[in-house]
């Protein structure tokens, strides 16, 4: 691929919204996360470690930024609240935000991969092909959400990970990644495939509720909803619709109302036009009331 080819055919490389030439039919996997329900308990993160064979890298490597948590809980503090009120137990206004790959429709990571190791699938996922990856880490550099994680080591064989006999705990439906490849949340694609297989045997499409992601399954407060956005009966579609969040918009119509729409749905970095597939429901903050 030469630079001249890139420039001449720019329109074919980069679409404003890829949905135009590859309509999602019959699946578009999407998620919505209710931040008001999220307690920051980290159960989703732990479930992800178990489901997707993520290495626990240990304190030292974690401090070097080598953590491999596909699903991480970001913490934000409402500083304004501070130690106001003179209470012995001041409210710092902790807020939690589960952050994982947003499975962007126009993913910034895809366009920069020199080896085409990350692609868009027909059902709207951003796929990562480990054995095609050459480890340039360009995708991670271009990811606005910083949700791609690089394997700096062959984790199962290095210290601090797991003893050899614990290989039995690995999920056989997910590869164990090796040193030098990039990885990220897959929306539990192995579960999606299993559900699609079952549905195909029964001659139907995947119904809402047939498939859960690992993080959704363990969430004690049910903050995470996952499903098929194309299916109008699905809970996730209904949530997106009720919050008036649309997939192929970089600024939602509801947000242009003066004084705000009063709806809680939003997507992170929408204005950068990656068209993320995850909608967050804003927390109802004490300071905002």
């Amino acid at each position, binding site marked *: 691929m030469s630079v001249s080819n890139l420039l001449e055919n720019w329109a074919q490389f980069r679409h404003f919204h890829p949905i135009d030439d590859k309509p999602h039919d019959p699946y578009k996997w999407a998620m919505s996360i209710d931040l008001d329900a999220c307690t920051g308990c980290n159960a989703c993160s732990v479930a992800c470690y178990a489901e997707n064979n993520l290495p626990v890298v240990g304190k030292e490597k974690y401090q070097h930024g080598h953590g491999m948590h596909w699903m991480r809980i970001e913490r934000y503090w409402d500083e304004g609240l501070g130690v106001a009120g003179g209470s012995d137990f001041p409210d710092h206004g902790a807020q939690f935000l589960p952050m994982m790959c947003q499975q962007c429709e126009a993913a910034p990571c895809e366009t920069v991969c020199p080896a*085409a190791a990350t*692609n868009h*699938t*027909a059902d709207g996922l951003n796929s990562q092909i480990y054995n095609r990856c050459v480890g340039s880490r360009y995708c991670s550099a271009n990811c606005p959400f910083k949700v791609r994680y690089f394997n700096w080591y062959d984790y199962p064989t290095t210290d601090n990970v797991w003893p050899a006999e614990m290989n039995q705990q690995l999920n056989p439906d997910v590869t164990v990644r090796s040193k030098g490849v990039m990885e990220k949340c897959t929306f539990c694609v192995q579960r999606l495939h299993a559900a699609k297989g079952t549905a195909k045997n029964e001659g139907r499409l995947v119904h809402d509720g047939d498939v859960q992601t690992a993080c959704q399954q363990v969430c004690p407060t049910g903050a995470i909803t996952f499903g098929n956005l194309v299916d109008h009966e699905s809970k996730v579609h209904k949530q997106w619709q009720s919050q008036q969040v649309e997939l192929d918009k970089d600024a939602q119509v509801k947000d242009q109302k003066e004084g705000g729409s009063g709806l809680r749905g939003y997507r992170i970095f929408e204005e950068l036009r990656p068209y993320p597939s995850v909608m967050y429901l804003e927390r109802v903050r004490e300071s905002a009331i």
Partner: protein
Amino acid sequence: MHRLLRLSILLMGLSVAVSGYAADAPQPTLTTEDDLGPQVVQPIEFPHDRHAGLRNPGDPLKGGMEIDCMYCHTYARRSAVAGIPPLQKCIGCHQSIETVRNKPRIQELFKYWDAKKPVPWKKVHDLPDFVRFNHERHIKRFVEQQNRPTQEACGYCHGDVKQMTVARRSKALSMGWCANCHQKDHPVTAAGGTPVGNQAYWYGFQKPVADAAGGEYKAPDTNNIKAQGPNDCWQCHK
């Protein structure tokens, strides 16, 4: 002179390091001299030909018994992996076949049975860990929908096992080899494709394009490859 010497030592060191790295990297044996997969030594030399081979009408003691593949590899029709039959399955028949009871291989089999230990069979068709292959899907299509004989359907990937004793891999089982069938049998057509929702799968780096008449779909011009990629790598890669 000194500088030249230093450079040559550096170059030599580099080349040794590089070749050492290349030699260390485990390369899978794709084919052996006779164009088959590696010879796998099994704990018991299981004669596939005796079990699945064709009957010999002249001498029934010499020919095979035409047992269906899925009598023993029973999981193939209902799960992603074909599975190895439990020892119980072997014993189930063999406890009542007196004629071969004293053959060394059968005695070996009963040793495992008496010790209550499974036979440590070795895997012959071992796909890399990053491949998602579903036996059930293929059996459903070929055997249940198209009514093809089981041995033919299994044989597309496993070769003519009924003629083998210990099974050996006889197909490449590489990505190109898989895509070869899939491109031929699920072509991208004007109407869309075979899987649900008019989604066809293509394996090159660009969607195949129709010719001027709008009929035949061909692989696109490879000199002008775009970075869009195949439409779903995750279909087979995990």
